[in-house]
């Protein structure tokens, strides 16, 4: 490299420069790339491999072929988890319109609005563990705020997390709280950059309210919507902390999702079933892969576009 700083040495500079330019990116990439390959990329393939074995995490692995996957097909708990994942995915998407709604509500310039915006964003900064605890107490059947409110308006109390029919929705509601805050901040930033001239022009043409929102504002918010969509899908499929804290999968396993069920199978007190757990995680990964492919394809189009 020393020669490179003195381009007028006897070496042909063009040659060095071309090679320097070829070598340099790999030297910069090496540490990060190796780390990433070692800890993230390789384990994905290892998980695929482990899913064909029966393994308790300590002893020898025993090849069982497709047996883990065959067991999944008849596993009721797996089926429940899969349905719950679908519920999470669909309900979580509500965070996008809800976040947009709050962003529109807050997109004003009255005094103190900046503080309001940060306080509305607040739930996102708190760890999901604390959000889970906070909502567990909120739902508590004996003293929770929810039932205190319900009783004060004359309704009978409900035990959200104790009811197999309601528990998953109760957890999703807790998860929506920070997720809405995230979508809100994305849209607030997006609204900030909306072209005022277009709005004025549309206003002169008589557009207002929902029509204005749909035809003029939302198209300009497309990048924010894309990111909101990506983070919401990922968030929905990653849900683990809240379930673990709020119900630990119960009551009667009704709040399990794939990410939680996998953990339970692989590392629970009922014995380590690493192979079976890996098979569940492979299914979850394949579901995610569908979305990842879509995200990458969108990004690739953007890259080509510039």
């Amino acid at each position, binding site marked *: 490299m020393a020669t490179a700083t003195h381009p007028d040495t006897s070496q042909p500079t063009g040659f060095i420069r071309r090679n320097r330019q070829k070598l340099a990116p790999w030297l*910069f990439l090496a540490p*990060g*790339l190796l*780390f*990433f390959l070692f800890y*993230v990329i390789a384990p994905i393939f290892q*998980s695929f491999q482990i899913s064909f074995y029966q393994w308790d995490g300590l002893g020898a692995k025993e090849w069982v072929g497709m047996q883990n996957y065959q067991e999944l097909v008849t596993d009721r708990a797996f089926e429940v988890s899969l349905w719950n994942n679908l519920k999470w995915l669909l309900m979580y998407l509500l965070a996008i319109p809800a976040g947009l709604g709050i962003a529109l509500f807050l997109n*004003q310039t009255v005094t103190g609005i900046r503080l309001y915006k940060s306080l509305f964003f607040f739930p996102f900064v708190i760890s999901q563990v604390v959000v889970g605890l906070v909502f567990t107490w909120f739902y508590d059947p004996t003293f929770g705020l929810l039932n205190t409110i319900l009783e004060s308006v004359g309704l009978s109390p409900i035990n959200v997390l104790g009811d197999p029919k309601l528990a998953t929705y109760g957890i999703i509601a807790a998860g929506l709280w920070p997720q809405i805050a995230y979508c809100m901040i994305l849209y607030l930033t997006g609204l900030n950059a909306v072209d005022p001239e277009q709005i004025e022009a549309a206003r002169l043409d008589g557009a207002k309210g929902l029509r204005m929102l749909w035809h003029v504002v939302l198209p300009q918010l497309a990048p924010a919507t894309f990111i909101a969509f990506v983070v919401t899908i990922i968030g929905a499929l990653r849900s683990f902390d809240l379930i673990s804290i709020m119900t630990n999968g119960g009551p009667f396993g009704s709040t399990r999702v794939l990410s939680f069920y996998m953990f339970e199978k692989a590392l629970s007190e009922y014995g380590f079933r690493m192979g079976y*757990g890996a098979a569940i995680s492979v299914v979850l990964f394949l579901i995610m892969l569908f979305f990842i492919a879509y995200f990458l394809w969108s990004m*690739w189009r953007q890259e080509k576009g510039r």
Partner: protein
Amino acid sequence: MFPKPIEKSSRAAQLSYQGLLPIALLMWLAPLIAVALFSIKPDTDFTTGNYWGLPSAFGGFENYGKVFFQSDMPRYLMNSFLITVPTVIGAVALSCMTGFALGIYKFKSNLWIFFMFVAGNFVPFQILMVPVRDLTLDMGLYNTKTGLVLFHIAFQTGFCTLFMRNFIRALPYELIEAARVEGVAEWRIFWFVVLPLMKPAIAALSVLIFTFIWNDYFWAVVLTQGAESQPVTAGITSFNAQYRAAYHLMSAGSIVAALPPVAMFFLMQRHFIAGLTLGAVK
């Protein structure tokens, strides 16, 4: 501006908007306000069933005192710092370099490597769980902060690379061209030309990664156990087991556990939001 600025509406509309704001905020933060209220109540309020009335006395000092002096909480907090800070430094340092490589140089596999980082950043943790746990055990790093830090650095490098690469792409390329014409070595371009321009990105990423790692629960449970290495997110569950049904203490503990990222957010708000919304505007 959309929606129509409220100043252009009638006086009544303006007043009702200003009145609505605090009510909406109170409703939005109600669960949290409840916990804050719990944390300053003395324990007698809970035995007498005074859950939602005003505290009969200010129990804040006693409750928070217990959290800090009669539990493992300070230890968990310390662990969290010792896990979070090295991860932030490591991930940001690595991604400054990967981002530079992918943002500045044109080579065949550039986009593929970039997409690999992005895709890896999106995968569900569970697919990594069994192999990473096994790997950590084999290296003798299970139940150590180092084991957790190493994995976090590697995983966060995915997101950080995405962030840094896009940031560097937006820098004026002429600067680098000019430096090359001058014959400046590549690593000097990185260090003296590009890195100073990356300060806002480094700040934004640091606060984001700090929050992400501080709030991590899954990997803390998978790779550590016990007070000697567990961060506060995992520690809070054993804290709660210790003080089962002592809601005033559990509330105080939760607030303490949540505080550092909250403080980070309010101190570095501009950077935090700039980082989170990168790409939300064309």
